[in-house]
């Protein structure tokens, strides 16, 4: 049958992946916040509007995601920041970056970290590695590892498992089954 052939052809070109929810992920890297926006099958959301809000709800930044669905900004305040993704057609997702995750230096508006680093470099010449520097290196490495892990966990939590799908179908039959049960008892 012709229709079947056309259908199989179309089916081959449409990989069966799970969709249609938008996700946003953000993490702190150094003095900036970097994030990704993607559909729940992993397709990046390009050129979408992302808003950064203070805890009071005041909008402080408006960004647009790049070709890989990424965005990046340097926070000027150190408080809980809400990052909202507006993907159009009624799609929206948000994530909160907690104040404690943000770097200390972000509290002041000017680029202070460089100055601080230079100062510690000065000390290094006399004492070898000073504790501040070691601390910073360790923190950077740990951050990097944890961020990857966090991203992985978030992605996994947000993906849809086959169990959930089968469970959902079960619920539907259960609900209609109950409906039938009560309807038939009335008769």
């Amino acid at each position, binding site marked *: 049958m012709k*229709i*079947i052939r*056309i*259908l199989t052809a*179309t089916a081959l070109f*449409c*990989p*069966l*992946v*799970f*969709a*249609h*929810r*938008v996700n946003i992920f953000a993490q702190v890297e150094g003095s900036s916040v970097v994030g990704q926006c993607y*559909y729940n*099958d992993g*397709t990046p*959301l*390009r*050129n979408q509007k992302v808003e950064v809000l203070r805890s009071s709800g005041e909008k402080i930044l408006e960004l647009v995601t790049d070709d890989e669905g990424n965005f990046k900004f340097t926070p000027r305040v150190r408080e809980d920041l809400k990052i909202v993704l507006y*993907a*159009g*057609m*009624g*799609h*929206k*997702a948000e994530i909160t970056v907690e104040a404690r995750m943000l770097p200390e230096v972000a509290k002041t508006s000017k680029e202070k970290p460089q100055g601080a680093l230079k100062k510690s470099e000065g000390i290094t010449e006399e004492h070898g590695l000073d504790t501040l520097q070691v601390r910073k290196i360790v923190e950077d490495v740990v951050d990097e590892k944890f961020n990857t892990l966090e991203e992985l966990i978030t992605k996994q939590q947000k993906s*849809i498992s086959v169990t*959930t*799908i089968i*469970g*959902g*179908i079960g*619920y*539907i*039959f259960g*609900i*209609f*089954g109950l*409906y*039938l049960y009560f*309807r*038939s008892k009335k*008769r």
Partner: protein
Amino acid sequence: MHISEGVVAAPVLVAGAAGAVAGCAIGLKKMDLENTPKVAVLSSAFFVASLIHIPVGPTSAHLMLNGLVGILLGWMSFPALLVALLLQAVLFQFGGITTLGVNTVAMAVPAVVCYLLYASFVRSRNSTLAAVAGFLAGVTGILLAGIIVALSLIFTGERFLNVARLFIIVHSPVMIVEGLLTAFIVVFIRKMKPAILGSSAA
């Protein structure tokens, strides 16, 4: 295609909920014991169809099957889609609980329209005509759903024409796939089990 939580204005949510309740009331009245299993099967088909996703350029779109649900269930599409959308909201976070009404209206109104427009052709003796009606039902279901979503977003500042245009561009491949799929299912049902079409005199 599901409106997320916190996107549309409160009056739209209330209107959507009222519409969904009214539609379900009509649907449940029509839903007798014999029809209930059919409603359940199509409800779960719709539930799963939203997971079949077709990448279109920068965005992605998914199958909806509301045209098919419509021509087979008529007004009973309301309870069928409400239950499926509720579970999608709870299990997959597609849409949301507060937007359940709006989403149900956006999917079920086109379904009922498809029923009114095409159901008699799908049941006609001419199988080519039935297949064409099935194709059109698949296309119309998505098209109307998009128009309703765009309308409900007007109050949030997104311009209707922009949203509608974007929606049609993104969904045109899905419409074709869905049209073909619906036509195929209609032809298949007519051959294998025409009783499914017959008993839904809603």
